């Protein structure tokens, strides 16, 4: 089944890379203070998932995974536009982008 992938690179490596990138995204999301970096971490997680989608799609000759990637990219683009707009609005209002300062919801 894995004949279509390159002989040198087994399937698990792709998945490991994807998991690594996703973990990087999670850790970045959790530890970074800057809102833009946090936002970029989210994008990183999305693309890590995209990588695994593409891998499986290629592995199983299923075009659904590819299509799903397009969807994710499209949503990510939209989300980036909205997210950046929110970030700018937050910066204008509070003159800071430190996530732990943006805590209006706290009691």
């Amino acid at each position: 089944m894995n004949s279509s992938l390159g002989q040198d690179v087994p399937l698990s490596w792709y998945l490991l890379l994807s998991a690594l990138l996703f973990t990087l995204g999670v850790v970045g999301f959790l530890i970074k203070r800057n809102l833009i970096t946090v936002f970029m971490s989210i994008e990183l997680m999305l693309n890590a998932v995209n990588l695994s989608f593409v891998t499986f799609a290629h592995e199983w000759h299923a075009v659904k995974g590819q299509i799903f990637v397009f969807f994710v990219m499209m949503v990510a683009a939209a989300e980036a536009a909205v997210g950046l707009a929110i970030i700018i609005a937050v910066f204008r209002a509070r003159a800071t982008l430190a996530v732990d300062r943006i805590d209006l919801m706290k009691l």
Partner: protein
Amino acid sequence: MNAIFHLWLIPLLPFAGFLLNGLFGRRLPKAVVTAIALLAPLAAFALVLIAVSSLLGPADGPSPLPFVETCSHPWIDIGTLHIDFSFVLDELSLVMLLVVTGVGFLIHVYSVGYMKHEEGYARYFSYLNLFLFFMTVLVLAGNALLMFVGWEGVGLASYLLIGFYFQKTSAANAGKKAFIVNRIGDFGFLIGMFLLLANFGTLTFSEIAEKLAYPSWQGGVVTVIALCLLLGAAGKSAQLPLYIWLPDAMEGPTPVSALIHAATMVTAGVYMIARTHVLFDHSPFALGVVAVVGAATALFAATIGLVQNDIKRVLAYSTISQLGYMFLGCGVAAYSAAIFHLVTHAFFKALLFLAAGSVIHAIGGEQDLRKMGGLWKKLPVTFAVTTVGVLAIAGFPPFAGFFSKDAILYAAFAQGGSGRALWFVGLVTALLTSFYMFRLWYLTFLGKPRNEDVHPHESPFSMLAPLVILALLSICGGWIGIERFSAFLTPATGARAMEAGSAQLELTLSVLAVAVAALGWLIAYLFYREKSALPARSAAALPGGYKLLANKYYVDEIYGATVVKPLLGLSTYFLGWVVDTGLLGGAVWLLGGIATFAGALLQRWQSGNIRSYAAWLAAGAAAVLLFLVVPWPAVLASLSAIHLGGAGH
């Protein structure tokens, strides 16, 4: 019956009047309110008259009664329990309907004049119409449950009207007292209904009568049912020991006392016994209890009535006493005599109450007999009609009361044995009745005015017209005679009608009754006309007896000490403090405390910090992943193997 005649219209019309006046009465002009209030009972009365006229039509052919009208949709249909909305028009309910709607209409007319200057004019008439609605439902009901609806409804209307002047504490309390005492009676009625359902499987009167036709039903459970129903009747009809609410009910407007607490509602108990007479017929013991309760109440209330000074209270005790007569009549199985007395009593007692209202109206709200006197010159019409009423209730021929009271006394005497004792009690009561009624008559109308400050004026036409009509009925109402009346009622009240006894015995008893009434008049004359010092002297001669009577045998005080106080204590201390504040309040506080505490703990999660939320999210995702990826059965099996191995070692 003709095709367009519908029984359900009779209750429905007063109900429409109640809705219109109750909902919009305050915004409508007084004339419209009056028109609605009067048209509703008038139309109902007209419908009853149509029913009567169809009876009088072709004499040959089968009798159109009983006429049953059942709603096509069942009311309650659960398993074997099947109850319909059914109205029954038979001889008994026809007589009652005539009284209720006829006297009811007259009292509506009277109220227009009496309540003219009162606050809450529309409210008053909407309640009055509501009463008529429930009373007609009670009378027409074809089964005990529907009767109970009317029964409770008239209780409600009575409560609302007793407490009509609700700003007055005494009126509000009297309303509550009436309602609560009636609950005791209703409890009996309810238990009786449950027993009927359990033993006969039906509440329909005609079906109960059919099932009771088998002679095996005798005593036992039938006695218990009859006694339960008697408790209900005693509550509604103010018999011993539940009579205490009726004197206090005089706090309501006087026309209400006339309509509800003299002529119609309080006779519902008598009607109920007559309606369920088959049960009583199968239980001589229950019948005996009815007779004894009636006779005892008649005598007891009459003795209290001797010394009351409030004109309406005298009439109230007299009502209780006369209701006792009706119970006595039922108790000797002379149902038609009891109903006959019910009808004549409705005429003359409504008349007396309305006349008393006219007197009270004329002298500016004064109700104390000692402050009246000499009013006959100022209130000639009221005086004349009151005289008729007094003669009727005292039992002088040819007034209505003579015929009906005589019928009951004769029925009691004719029963023989203990019936003779009951007859004697009835005779003594007749003496007392005559005395206190003439006492009222002398104190109110004759002698010199004892209060010169008031300037009495005769009542308006709208009040006098009903008085005159009722006076005519009080004169002629008895002329139909018990034989014809009882023959008419026989299909509804059973064959145990009045047997024709010896004419000589009947005549002797009648003469005796009239003689006793005349004696009562004579004593009253001596006491209150001839020697005005006599009442004070006789009261001084028997200070204990007078005090006992003036304080109504201290029954209210005894009930207060034995029933009300303990109940109030139980409610305040045990139910109020322990159960309500302690248990229920404590439980609520405990639940609230738990919620508050849990909230304080969980609040920490809601840090408002995005990163902490994200960390929880990641941890949750990791936990789910762990759960899905790890092969738990294998892990657990290996773990337990280690554990067992360790134990076995």
